[in-house]
């Protein structure tokens, strides 16, 4: 642990310290459910439409409903403007997001229907897919879609040999020593893993530690998500 104490992160955080998180639901009045989630400078918004009938008919699945996620970064969310429209990266992240969320949804209750989740990144400083998944999970809950549990997503990084939580852009570009390893992980409050990716270089022992770190971090995120949902309920009660 002594290495962990002396390790300097570019923005001065402790190795297990998250950036400031914010969450709010009900940000898009047109949607059936919507939410914003941010890790520091990384801001994601998500909106849910549905469940509604899947069109065209041949795409309908009589066994269960379909969860359809679309992840997209706004052109001005990064330094070098992104050309609008889907890319290979955004297509993959969209699919990963579906896989991260579907296990918690009682999607069998909606045969032939589709639930659309649209995720947009307004401002990016790494961990955008994790912020997107956190916002999407909130939006689904806000839409009142039956869910077994919540999910929370965090990126664990390994900078040289040091594990850290909630990687930012400077850390993602870490070049010293063994360089940067990026491990986005999504978990339920009970510690079931619904999503895991890894880019870099890591031993299985370190990976186990990374998962343990993610377990702690996702608990913190879960509290932030829960608070946002409760706040929106209180507001609704206030209105009535």
């Amino acid at each position: 642990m002594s290495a962990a104490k002396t390790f300097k992160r570019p923005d001065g955080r402790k190795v297990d310290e998250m950036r400031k998180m914010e969450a709010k639901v009900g940000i898009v009045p047109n949607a059936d459910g919507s939410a914003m989630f941010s890790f520091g400078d990384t801001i994601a918004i998500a909106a849910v439409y549905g469940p509604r009938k899947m069109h065209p008919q041949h795409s309908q699945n009589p066994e269960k409903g379909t969860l359809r996620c679309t992840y997209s970064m706004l052109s001005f969310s990064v330094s070098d403007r992104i050309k609008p429209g889907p890319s290979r990266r955004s297509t993959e992240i969209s699919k990963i997001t579906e896989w991260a969320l579907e296990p918690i949804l009682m999607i069998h209750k909606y045969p032939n229907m589709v639930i659309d989740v649209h995720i947009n990144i307004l401002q990016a400083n790494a961990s955008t897919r994790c912020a997107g998944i956190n916002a999407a999970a909130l939006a689904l809950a806000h839409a009142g879609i039956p869910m077994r549990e919540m999910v929370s997503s965090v990126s664990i990084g390994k900078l040289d040999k040091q594990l850290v939580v909630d990687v930012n852009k400077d850390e993602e570009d870490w070049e010293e020593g063994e360089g940067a390893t990026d491990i986005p992980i999504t978990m339920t409050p009970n510690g079931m893993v619904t999503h895991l990716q890894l880019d870099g270089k890591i031993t299985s022992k370190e990976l186990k530690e990374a998962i343990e770190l993610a377990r702690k971090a996702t608990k913190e995120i879960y509290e932030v998500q829960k608070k946002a949902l409760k706040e929106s309920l209180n507001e609704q009660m206030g209105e009535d």
Partner: protein
Amino acid sequence: METPRLTAERIKEYLAQGKRFDGRKPEDFREISIEGNVSNKAEGSARVRLGKTEVIVGIKMGVAEPYPDSPNKGNLMVTAELLPLSSPRYESGPPRFPAVELGRLVDRAIRESKFIDFEKLCIKEGEKVWSVFIDIYSINDDGNLVDAAGIAAVAALKWTKMPKYDEKEGKVVYDEPTDKKIPLAKDIPICITAHKIDGTIIVDPTLEEEDVSEAKITIGATPEGVISSMQKGSPVELSIEDIHEILETTEKVRKKVFSSIKEYLE
């Protein structure tokens, strides 16, 4: 059109008495609010709310070759995306006509009003000029995206801090913003779109009213009334009297809108 016929008829009945569902008069705008710094990676950005309608606009700048017909002028590109997030009506995919129209209307209001001094955005004639990208995104569509986007674009341009340009390397250094502003004219262009519904001229329609609208016309002009862009939409004719009425109404409306957004733009 997705507004039921029953609602459409009721909207018309109301308008015949000079009333609207939300209590406004035909020439009333909804409340406007403007917010800056929506995205700190953009050189400038703004969020505009018009009632329940919400749009965000971000400005990115780059260095590129000028167009052959304007070797000493900067470039402008305006794009709009109607995010599927913003309405159950929008789907992912290549831009359809309403998105193209939104981008083009804002483009022409800004370009034709000479709001941006493009000659000052020239770095080296015939070789290097600044490109200004204005990207518009709908966040919640409850009608009149065009007028909201026009205001957001002007605000974002006003708040833009140009990035540093490293001439030796020929690269833009994005993380070192300068205090330099985009050279802008004093008078801002404002888009006002008027709609004709069953003989009544209204402005700032809600989504339902937009569905019922028979004809529309978007006018880009300065608060002083200098018109620089105009476009009639929808395949229904307007009489000369209609156009006169629209010109008079929008002129009044534009002044009011300007006085309500002025404080944000100083």
